[in-house]
């Protein structure tokens, strides 16, 4: 279904010695245009909107200090950065202060080594082993390579993340028979999505069963559909069992206006560009506003300025509510802690904690999503509205337990 330009692209035989086909260098001579543009992922420029961007050490914790409270007791309070180019995927996980103590499952979205070596050999066994052991054999070049998206033999787009394949199957979607257009989203979706590690064997799974939005995913975790998995951690201050949301870019996009029109991640983030009059797919996956002519103006008649300003406006409206939601969630953690200090029991605080867990989930779902609202404005804003409401309800509830209420 998903041949890149079918017969028009000359197929090269990529060497497999030392798993060279899991890297990028082995493809350099055969596909120079794609290789060269992929290397642009090393560039670290800010976004014209002032949100996102690809600078090193662009710390979420610095830009939104409320995260320090909200993730207290969990690794995300130690280091949590804005994402940057794909070429950094390996470097950044290896140097992340979140790495120590992790399991093999963390390599799933950082290298197709997961599939081409480990999974083919012994299924999900690698997932529960220590990260450092599993990561050791992966060479620098193999952390994120062409094989993350392409079948090295056919150069067709492929989904190697078996967790995504299984999760989609539970929704009745067979990604093996997906249309070419759908593949242009699924190939990103396999990583750019909310996930959790199953309690049973540590495999990667997605909570899609009830639908793709934040509310449906919360329901998934609440109703026991995640099996033994119940929380990511217990919050240090409020002692609430928390969920961490991770980059639900796919889920945000899929119910939005662009997905309605069949516009995929690739259309915006990997537009067709030209060299010597011939088109090829840009492999610089970054803010589409850096390539607005190719990414947006092929469909939109507005000027580049109008369109950039519009994206910025959506970002600003989103970020305004995101900060309010995040800060109210922080206050709720502290209020529940204060209630505990005043002698409130777990039974008395159950409601307040449940509301806080849900509130933080909605806030985090948006904060972890990378489009800062753009991928689905009204859906994202709805999610933030729910977060604000629930966080306040939690605060009011905790106060009521100790102080009573009017």
């Amino acid at each position, binding site marked *: 279904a998903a041949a890149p330009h079918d017969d028009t692209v000359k197929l090269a035989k990529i060497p497999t010695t030392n798993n060279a086909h899991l890297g990028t260098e082995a493809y350099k001579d055969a596909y120079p245009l794609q290789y060269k543009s992929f290397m642009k992922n090393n560039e670290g420029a800010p976004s014209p909107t002032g949100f996102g961007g690809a600078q090193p050490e662009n710390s979420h914790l610095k830009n939104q200090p409320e995260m320090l409270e909200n993730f207290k007791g969990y690794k995300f309070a130690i280091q949590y950065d804005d994402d940057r180019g794909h070429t950094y995927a390996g470097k950044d996980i290896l140097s992340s202060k979140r790495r120590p103590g992790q399991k093999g499952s963390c390599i799933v979205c950082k290298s197709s080594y997961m599939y081409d070596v480990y999974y083919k050999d012994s299924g999900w066994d690698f997932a529960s082993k220590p990260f450092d052991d599993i990561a050791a054999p992966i060479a620098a070049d193999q952390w994120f390579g062409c094989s993350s998206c392409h079948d090295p033999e056919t150069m067709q787009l492929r989904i190697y993340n078996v967790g995504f394949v299984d999760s989609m199957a539970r929704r009745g979607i067979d990604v093996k028979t997906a249309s070419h*257009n759908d593949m242009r989203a699924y190939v990103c979706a396999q990583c750019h999505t909310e996930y959790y590690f199953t309690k049973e064997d540590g495999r990667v799974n997605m909570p899609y069963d009830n639908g793709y939005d934040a509310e449906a995913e919360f329901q998934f975790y609440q109703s026991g559909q995640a099996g033994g998995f119940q929380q990511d951690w217990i919050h240090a201050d409020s002692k609430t069992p928390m969920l961490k949301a991770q980059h639900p870019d796919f889920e945000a996009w899929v119910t939005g206006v662009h997905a309605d029109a069949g516009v*995929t991640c690739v259309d915006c983030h990997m537009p067709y560009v030209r060299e010597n009059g011939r*088109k090829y797919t840009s492999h610089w996956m970054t803010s589409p506003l850096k390539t607005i002519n190719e990414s947006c*103006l*092929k*469909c939109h008649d507005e000027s580049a300025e109008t369109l950039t300003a519009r994206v910025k406006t959506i970002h600003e409206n989103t970020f305004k509510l995101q900060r309010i939601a995040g800060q109210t969630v922080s206050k709720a953690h502290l209020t529940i802690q204060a209630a505990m200090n005043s002698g409130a029991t777990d039974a008395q605080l159950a409601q307040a904690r449940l509301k806080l867990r849900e509130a933080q989930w909605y806030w985090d779902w948006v904060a972890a999503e990378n489009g800062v609202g753009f991928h689905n404005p009204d859906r994202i804003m709805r999610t933030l509205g729910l977060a604000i409401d629930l966080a306040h309800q939690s605060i009011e509830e905790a106060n009521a337990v100790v102080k009573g209420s009017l």
Partner: protein
Amino acid sequence: MDFKQYVSEHTLKCLAGGFVIGALVMGVGSVMVSATGGPAFCGSCHAMKEPAASHAMATHKDRDCVECHLPHDNPAIYLIEKGRTGMIDTYHEVLRDYPAHIQLSKGAKETVNKNCLRCHQTTVERVKMGAAPMDTGDCMKCHSRVAHGSNHLEGGIKVE
């Protein structure tokens, strides 16, 4: 050596080449003129492949490109304009420096609008835009896709 380098080192030659093509178009008789106004000729350039492909899918696929894109006020202006724009097109085609998505310049929009009216005056003559289309933001505000289909179709980009 890439094209840009080639052209910048041989600017005069290229301009002369463009001029010759333009002059040819202007100079040759009406047979030549009509042979160089349709999708087959216009679509022969790389830059024009996408407009030609989208035009082929649009309701106006039976109208020649020049029906819309050249002024039809009188034959002299038509020919001068054909030569002038032909040279510009050729120059940028050789340079390969045209944008990913070419957009109509202001003058080109006015030309197109006047041509819409040439065929559709009766349809619109009882509403405000009949006399002065540009004032209402032009025909393209609502009908930009009648001539070139669209990239907005459900199912994603069709023209690639």
